[in-house]
């Protein structure tokens, strides 16, 4: 009887296709996942491909054009002349100055970031851990311009730093520093020292986060084993901690280095009148109207970062990101 009932009214092994356009689409996506994948990928890839990659190629193409020195018009013919202009003494100076600044900023960020990252990774627990996390995240996400503005307030001649040093009777230190060539100036807010401090301040969180991530992966018993075997804290740091944290430091340095290379706002607001790469790009494309030279200038940080990333990859820095 039951077999008869079953055979007379067989349950469908496969559900019937649902009706309507919506059902048909849903069935199609189920049967052919590749169609769904393609539909999902198409909008973002088209957007990024056309808007971003397209623009990058437009920029690259412009760097092979040249500017007619008499009419100021852009000559749209292939030439390497613009790249040759990069090697004029003034332009080489700009590149060298920017790379030196980027290297110093990276070094200082690493030194300041390490204790914060180490404490957060090894000693902070529970509520303190959350506090450290927010303590790094909030300055990272605070408005970039407001941070620069805050330093304009601090470094101004009549500002809080001068006041503090005066109270401590240490003004002579500041005056001695400002009278030095290159790093000095009329006041800190118009000197390379000021530019340097602000760069370090603004990019510091970008260094802390990867170093902390790398340190969190160091097992605590490695450090203990090292001291059990008789190493002093200094030796443990040099031979155990530092080599293990190095990929994190390199990962962080990618950010501090690259961001310093491309920035044009910080040296414009706090610094001397001598240009950095970013400012050179900005003034070439703006007031000078020399877009080919501006484009060639932007290739410099791209090439430097290309080599940098290549080296960082060999050191395994990407695992620490």
């Amino acid at each position: 009887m039951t077999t008869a009932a079953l055979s007379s009214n067989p349950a469908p092994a496969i559900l019937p296709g649902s009706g309507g356009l919506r059902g048909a689409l849903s069935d199609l996506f189920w049967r052919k996942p590749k169609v769904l994948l393609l539909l999902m990928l198409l909008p973002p890839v088209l957007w990024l491909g056309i808007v971003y990659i397209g623009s990058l190629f437009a920029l690259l193409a412009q760097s092979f054009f040249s500017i007619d020195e008499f009419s100021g018009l852009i000559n749209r013919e292939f030439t390497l002349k613009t790249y040759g202009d990069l090697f004029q003494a003034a332009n080489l100076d700009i590149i060298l100055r920017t790379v030196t600044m980027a290297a110093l900023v990276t070094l200082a960020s690493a030194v300041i970031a390490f204790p914060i990252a180490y404490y957060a990774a090894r000693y902070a627990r529970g509520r303190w851990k959350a506090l450290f996390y927010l303590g790094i995240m909030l300055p990272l996400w605070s408005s970039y311009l407001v941070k620069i503005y805050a330093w304009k307030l601090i470094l101004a001649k009549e500002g809080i730093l001068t006041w503090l040093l005066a109270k401590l009777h240490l003004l002579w230190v500041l005056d001695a520093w400002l009278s030095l060539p290159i790093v000095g100036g009329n006041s800190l807010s118009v000197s390379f020292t000021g530019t340097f401090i602000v760069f370090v301040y603004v990019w510091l969180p970008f260094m802390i986060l990867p170093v902390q991530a790398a340190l969190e992966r160091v097992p605590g018993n490695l450090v203990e084993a090292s001291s059990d075997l008789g190493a002093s804290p200094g030796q443990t740091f040099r031979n155990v901690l530092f080599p293990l944290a190095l990929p994190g430091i390199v990962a962080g340095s990618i950010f501090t280095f690259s961001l310093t290379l491309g920035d044009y706002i910080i040296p414009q607001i706090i610094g001397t009148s001598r240009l950095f790469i970013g400012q050179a790009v900005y003034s070439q494309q703006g007031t000078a109207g020399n877009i080919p030279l501006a484009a060639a200038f932007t290739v410099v940080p791209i090439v430097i970062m290309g080599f940098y990333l290549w080296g960082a990859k060999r050191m395994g820095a990407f695992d620490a990101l």
Partner: protein
Amino acid sequence: MRSDGSQSAPLGLKIAAACGLLFLHLPILLIFVYAFTTEEKSFVWPPPGLTTQWFAVTWNRPDVWQALSLSVRVAAISTAIALVLGTLCSAAVSRTKFFGRETISLLVILPIALPGIITGIALRSAFSLADIPFSFWTIVLGHATFCVVVVYNNAVARFRRTSGSMIEASMDLGADGFQTFRHVVLPNIATALLAGGMLAFALSFDEVIVTTFTAGQQQTLPIWMLEELIRPRQRPVTNVVAMVVVLVTLLPILAAYYLTRDGDQIAGSGK
């Protein structure tokens, strides 16, 4: 470094870490004091007196309101575009393995990995080659491009923790693809998307480098601030605006943190 299990840090490390955190926070706190100073012409410290009159002055400045409104509109639309593109991309990348998957991740991250000035001047030269005039939409185009990565990072982290078998179970129980998306996928990724969206909003609201290249004559709030920094007109108004900007960006960051803190991957670590 004793092995008796005590977790107390060496004093030197404590001091260095505390100094580092103070270095990160004191400058921002200073902004709050300067918003109340009575001094108009210079950045003199300590402030000669305290007043709240500059809040009223700022409130009645039409240029500030215009800049704020443009910034909010740009950020809202860029965030919406970034949400759609970022979610689609993360869903595709995390659900299936396909040829060129790494390239797609790189493509998403590139606009934020390269210095902003390169993105900015690249967009500008593309606009000039294609004869596109500057408008509201040229700003949005730039912002949406680098906001995708924030949404993408958050959504990918969440997809990684969401088991794919739930989707299969939903389909086995007879739900069609759209029902599965609406009732199974969306509730699972909703808080990650919200967090990503807030971070994208904060990123766009604050962005200045790319915007200087794509804005033409219009002023977003950061562009307004930049103008004030280069050619100060009324310093007290800038002080007040700076303080408000700090408060406005603080809220989405805190919200994004609380929305995603249960996971191992927390929003915002990759600005």
